[in-house]
């Protein structure tokens, strides 16, 4: 839903505990007209959706976010900080549920989002 | 409720919620540092204490609760009312 509109995936690579996606935000996305007028802030829910779309790329399947244990928005993300972000994902598959632990950080290791939740594969 | 009984109960609920050893909770230790509270988890601590001991912690009173000893005194004072 958001990939190639709200954000772009530059590349992804396996890491010792999962995968890391290099991404960038599109500062011209229309959501910034309303969030907020004259004060663009990346909506937290769009960060959750970006994590989901990275997970779907990994498991090569559509999915539904069925539960969030905890998701914290540690620092306010704005599109001007959106050039060089990383979405780190570690996941485990049990039946048709993907349990995911993820963070969104920048190149200086500033943490914007931490996420623990579950996706139901379609 | 006996003061020691109150102290044990406070330590137990905090240790479980914030995943620290009860032994780490000593009366003079700083609450935020020991439980590694940030602005978000501070709300969890306040809500937990309020619901467990049915007391109300006003924002203005929060600044006077720095150590666990302050917390024990605050709760026992409110509970005896």
């Amino acid at each position, binding site marked *: 839903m958001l990939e190639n509109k709200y954000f772009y995936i530059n590349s992804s690579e396996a890491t010792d505990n999962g995968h890391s996606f290099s991404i960038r935000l599109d500062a011209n996305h229309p959501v910034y007209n309303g969030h907020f007028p004259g004060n663009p802030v990346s909506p937290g829910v769009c960060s959750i959706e970006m994590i989901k779309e990275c997970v779907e790329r990994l498991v090569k399947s559509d999915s*539904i976010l069925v539960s969030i244990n905890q998701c914290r928005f540690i620092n306010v993300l704005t599109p001007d900080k959106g050039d060089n972000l990383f979405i780190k994902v570690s996941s485990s598959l049990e039946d048709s549920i993907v349990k995911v632990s993820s963070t969104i950080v920048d190149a200086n290791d500033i943490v914007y989002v931490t996420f623990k939740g579950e996706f139901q594969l379609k | 409720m006996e003061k020691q009984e109150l102290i044990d109960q406070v330590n137990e609920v905090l240790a479980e919620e914030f995943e620290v050893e009860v032994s780490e909770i000593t009366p003079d230790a700083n609450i935020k540092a020991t439980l590694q509270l940030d602005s978000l988890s501070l709300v969890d601590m306040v809500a937990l204490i309020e619901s467990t001991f049915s007391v109300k912690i006003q924002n203005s009173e929060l600044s006077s609760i720095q150590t666990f000893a302050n917390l024990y005194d605050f709760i026992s004072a409110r509970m005896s009312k």
Partner: protein
Amino acid sequence: MDIIKVYKGEDIKKLLNQRSPILMVDTFEAVNDEVCIAGLTINADNMFCVNGGFKEPGLIEHIAQSASAFVTYRAIQTQGDQNPLLGFIGEVKKFKLQSPLPCAGSELSTTITIQSVVMNITMFSAETRVGDSVVATCQMKLSV
């Protein structure tokens, strides 16, 4: 239950800073100091609708905005008229999707119950329904 005030249409903008395409509340009703009910009729052109299906981020944003509207409403009640407070989601906890995601045309009704307010952070629980069925429940912290 004394319904204090109902906000609809343009009035909603008195309670929220979000604007199109991400304004996700179209009715607001304060039930009492701790509880409010906010609503959203999902239009097919909603930014979080895909092929007529409303997606998870839209649901979570609707819940967050319902609470943000309530925080502003409470501030107006206690401190008098003012611009909407800028609310950010600080944390989402125990979010559970409990029935299939609603489709375009559905009417969401979300009950917000304030649990604790510490400094600039409001913790609340939320339950969203479509008709009688519960769509999702969660707990959130909003920082203003």
